[in-house]
């Protein structure tokens, strides 16, 4: 039986204006109390375009998208607890790390990085999901 999305005031879905439309039945982030679970963010611009073959540009877009979700939920990069980075090529991690430093500054999240055989779209090179705390 389908769940009623309004059953708990602790649970809040976030669909962020300006971000690419979710590709299937999910939303950009879901808050549970003061924890925010952010869907995998990819290198797709507001126009839905992916810069093919440019992992740095994709990583920057993915972090911009992540930042937009965090901001919409009332938090920021300094409150990210954990990221999971999925790369088509593990050799791209250096390039992604440079972008991560730009966005996270002094804050360092817990992190896992893996190489996968495919992402949701052929041109995608990087996907980043996150769990964040929401400051009270």
């Amino acid at each position, binding site marked *: 039986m389908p769940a009623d999305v309004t059953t708990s005031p602790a649970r809040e879905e976030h669909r962020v204006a300006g971000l690419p439309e979710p590709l299937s039945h999910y939303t950009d982030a879901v808050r549970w109390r003061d924890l925010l679970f952010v869907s995998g963010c990819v290198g797709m611009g507001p126009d839905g375009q992916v810069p093919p073959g440019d992992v740095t540009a994709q990583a920057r877009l993915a972090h911009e998208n992540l930042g937009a979700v965090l901001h919409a939920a009332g938090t920021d990069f300094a409150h990210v607890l954990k990221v999971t980075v999925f790369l088509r090529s*593990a050799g791209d991690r250096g390039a992604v790390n440079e972008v991560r430093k730009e966005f996270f500054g002094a804050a360092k999240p817990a992190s896992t990085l893996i190489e996968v055989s495919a992402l949701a779209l052929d041109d995608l090179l990087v996907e980043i999901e996150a769990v964040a705390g929401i400051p009270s």
Partner: protein
Amino acid sequence: MTVLRAERSNPAGAPPALRPYYANAVRVTAGDLLFISGQVAWDADGDVVGRDDPVRQAEQVFANIGCILAAHGATFDDVVKVTVYVTDLSWFDELSRIRNERFSASPPSSTIVQVAALVDPALLIEVEAIAAI
């Protein structure tokens, strides 16, 4: 007396856990959350332990996780979720033995997947964890 911080659940109607070292669900009822980055078979100097030896690598991974847990006053009993990434699932039974030694008393919820590669081609397993302390 141990304070109950997490309730394990293997409800009827869902397929039972395949192994005793994990539970279908864990409900956290109290405690602070600790998010542990994916741990790989690096020693304290960052050198790979157990090249071409997945069992040795898994032992190092769990030693690293144990070290991080201990630094936060926690043990394997406090782990509520693990995600296990392996480059090859063919040694699942040996990995199960290692996990059983650490988690059978207080099994976390668990996901395991085979991935195309880890951050260094020499690495065969990575494990991340969430603990409720």
